[in-house]
């Protein structure tokens, strides 16, 4: 569906995307992760055939965006980072006019709009002004709009940013269903749990480059240990958590210092914890858990993500 070699995007002197390679096969759910300004949206916009490529090669649905922009866009669904709904039109009309841009007959667009409103649970809001919708509803409407042309490839730039947990779960459920229907999904996100749940494959970007690549499980296996021991000490500790890190450095494969706790990475979390206690340290709270994508991030350059 997408293939890129040495793909670059420059804005004047500034390089936003610095030579990335991508291959997204049909039916995959592919995720871009990375800190703010990593170049995720810039990459997405090139794939969406709205932003000219500055260097390298890009094929989307087998076509070159430079020469076949309208043909590519005809088969894409795009949910941009910022909503671009027409806030003065009502909910249903937003879908109707958008469907017409794809050259679909009016009758078909009407049927499709009603189906999609049902799909994103906005049927009872069909006549509401977009202005009066909540953030989550707007996002759902944007997703409905991106599906109006039955796209082969759906591009979602931070689909759930700014939503409450409830609204995020509704959206995830809809995306799961689309995935089950074989739609190829490409999404960007700041949320590790979202990436872990939705994506078959992830790339982590930082400063315009891909710094890690693989399935969520692969990434955890490659960049983290099996388990993590979290230690939280009282605020009165001299020198804070950083000073304590030296005392336990040899007990784990890696120790990560966060402002409020220490993370000890090892294969056996309970064993590590026992050794900590042997040293006579008395953490105020402990937690032994499996590694998640979040731990991968603490290790990778994209650290600002979790701050």
């Amino acid at each position, binding site marked *: 569906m997408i293939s890129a070699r040495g793909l670059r995007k420059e804005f004047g002197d500034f390089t936003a995307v610095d030579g990335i390679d991508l291959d997204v096969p049909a039916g995959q759910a592919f995720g871009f992760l990375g800190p703010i300004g990593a170049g995720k949206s810039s990459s997405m916009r090139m794939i969406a055939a709205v932003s000219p490529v500055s260097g390298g090669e890009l094929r989307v649905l087998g076509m070159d965006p430079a020469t076949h*922009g309208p043909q590519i866009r005809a088969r894409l669904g*795009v949910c941009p980072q910022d909503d671009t709904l027409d806030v003065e039109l009502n909910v249903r009309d937003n879908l109707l006019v958008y469907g017409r841009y794809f050259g679909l007959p009016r009758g078909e667009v009407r049927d499709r709009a009603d189906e999609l409103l049902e799909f994103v649970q906005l049927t009872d809001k069909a006549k509401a002004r977009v202005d009066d919708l909540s953030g989550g509803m707007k996002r759902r409407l944007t997703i409905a709009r991106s599906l109006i042309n039955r796209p*082969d490839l759906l591009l979602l730039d931070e689909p759930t940013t700014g939503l409450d947990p409830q609204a995020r779960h509704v959206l995830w459920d809809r995306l799961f269903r689309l995935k089950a229907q074989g739609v190829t999904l490409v999404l960007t996100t700041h949320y590790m749990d979202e990436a872990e749940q939705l994506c078959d494959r992830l790339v982590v970007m930082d400063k315009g480059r891909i710094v890690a690549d693989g399935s969520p499980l692969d990434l955890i296996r490659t960049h983290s240990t099996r388990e993590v021991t979290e230690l939280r000490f009282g605020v009165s500790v001299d020198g804070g958590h950083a000073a304590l890190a030296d005392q336990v450095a040899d007990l784990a494969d890696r120790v990560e210092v966060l402002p409020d706790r220490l993370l000890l990475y090892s294969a056996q979390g309970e064993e590590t914890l026992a050794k900590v206690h042997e040293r006579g340290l008395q953490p105020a709270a402990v937690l032994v858990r499996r590694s998640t994508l979040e731990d991968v991030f603490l290790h990778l350059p994209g650290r600002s993500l979790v701050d």
Partner: protein
Amino acid sequence: MSSTDTANPTRTPSPAAAPTAPSTRELVARQVDYWWRVYLRTWHGTLASSFLMPLLYVVAIGVLLGGYIDSDPDQLAGAPSYLAFVVPGMIAGQVMTVGVSETSWPVMSGIKWQKVYVGQIATPLTVPSIVLAQLAFVAFRLLVAVAVFLLVLAPFGVLATWWGALLAVPVLILVGLAFAAVCFGFTAGLDSDTTLTVIYRVAILPMFLFSGAFFPVSQLPAVLEWLAKATPLWHGVSLTRMLTTDTLAGGQALVHLVYLGALAAFGTWWAVRRLTAKLVV
């Protein structure tokens, strides 16, 4: 709902069979539904302003103030009365206002605030088709405004011939479009709307007052007269006046038409260029 019809099952991309791009005309046609809905949402407001405002102006300035002005036709570009003189000026000024108001803040909003254009270029629509569709909408709005204006004024007896009035319709649409296209191009390159407010004060309003709508520009000092005659509004006013007062002069009319046509063409080209620079980055 059934889950199978929400999206296409995956198709294999086939580079060899890339379909041809839809024509610009086709893409413009696809935006008719959008603009029709915009029209339905706004027509009552614009109708009031395109009907009431000019009527008030014409009554106040043309009829009441004009009653004090007792000039001979030679000084009024051949118009039989001040009312007959001022009416084409008013309507040309009105058409300028409609053209500019449709392509100033609305264009800004499409780029920056509501980002309607950003949503549109994510579809098969192209920037030229977006500009042309919006200008076509402006032309339609101008048609309604001009038709209403002329119908309201017909009873005042200021339209010398019916065919002149009829010919004035496309001419006035051209005047409005010339302004709309240039204003589109201008606005598309702006970063904030403060400049727009300035433009209204330093360009639009003075042009309305000094480009021959209310008095013949020959009244102005030579330099200012020359300046006034360079403005698009003067060309629009003169040409409209020739038609409504039955004083058509072929050569002069052609100059006006070419000027306005060239301006509309340049504006359209400029708008496409500047909107592309804003959106396709």
